[in-house]
């Protein structure tokens, strides 16, 4: 029962944050409502027994990635979104399209068998599902190669970010001369 209450409360907060992201005009408000969504998703992960994923969600998503977003919004001094004729067409097509996606996915989920399994951390099974020890056991044995490949991916991403965000050489030259 407590499980259901926690799920509903944080699920509602989650959906409210996601809808608020759509309704806000200023990007900084959207970013902050995305932080709310990610924080309440961490609680949902805890309800599913995924301690490690919940911790990573708060540290990496709500922490690192959103700080990067807020930093860029402030760096570029992003103002309110202006209306253009493109946005009118986008509202006309986007809202029914997204509603159709929701209805189709939900219909497929509810209709299919096998999704009616009851979930949750029971008192006897709550010992150690999804803690860091179990996950690292799996990550460093079965998934060792993908793990190493991600390290290369992150390295390339760092270099790409530096190259893209650095000022082009010609601009720097003219600045120095002028």
């Amino acid at each position, binding site marked *: 029962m407590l499980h259901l209450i926690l799920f509903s409360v944080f699920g509602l907060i989650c959906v409210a944050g996601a809808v608020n992201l759509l309704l806000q005009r200023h990007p900084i408000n959207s970013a902050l409502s995305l932080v709310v969504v990610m924080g309440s998703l961490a609680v949902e992960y805890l309800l*599913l027994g995924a301690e490690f994923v919940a911790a990573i969600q708060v540290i990496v998503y709500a922490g690192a990635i959103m700080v990067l977003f807020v930093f860029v919004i402030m760096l570029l001094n992003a103002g309110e979104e202006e209306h253009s004729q493109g946005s009118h067409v986008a509202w006309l097509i986007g809202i029914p399209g997204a509603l159709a996606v929701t209805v189709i996915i939900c219909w497929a989920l509810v209709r299919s068998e096998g999704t009616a399994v009851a979930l949750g951390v029971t008192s006897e099974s709550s010992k150690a*599902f*999804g803690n860091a020890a179990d996950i690292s056991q799996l990550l460093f044995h079965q998934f060792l190669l993908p793990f190493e490949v991600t390290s290369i991916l992150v390295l390339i991403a760092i270099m790409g970010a530096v190259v893209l965000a650095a000022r082009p050489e010609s601009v720097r030259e003219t600045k120095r001369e002028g």
Partner: protein
Amino acid sequence: MISLSYYLVLSAILFACGVAGFLIKRNIITIFMSIELMLNGVNLSFVAFAAKWEMLGNKLALSGHVFVFFVMVVAAAEAAVGLAIIIAVFRTRETLNIDQVNLLKL
């Protein structure tokens, strides 16, 4: 005790909000945030399915969590590169509105 379909419906709603934001938003940073929202929706269904297989006693159920880990790594890399691209676009065009970013080369 909650049914698995509750979590899946929540994740579908989050994903659809991300799709809607991607389509209706005109600010390039907000569009990027909508993509993160979609990734979060998918992560929730990964964790929910992992919990289902754990309930049924499958030994490899935790690979769902490992997949969420990989999705987060890719999302972090994508955020770093994407925001660098946004900075580069803003530097050349001085706008964040995607209706005005319609040429590949200025």
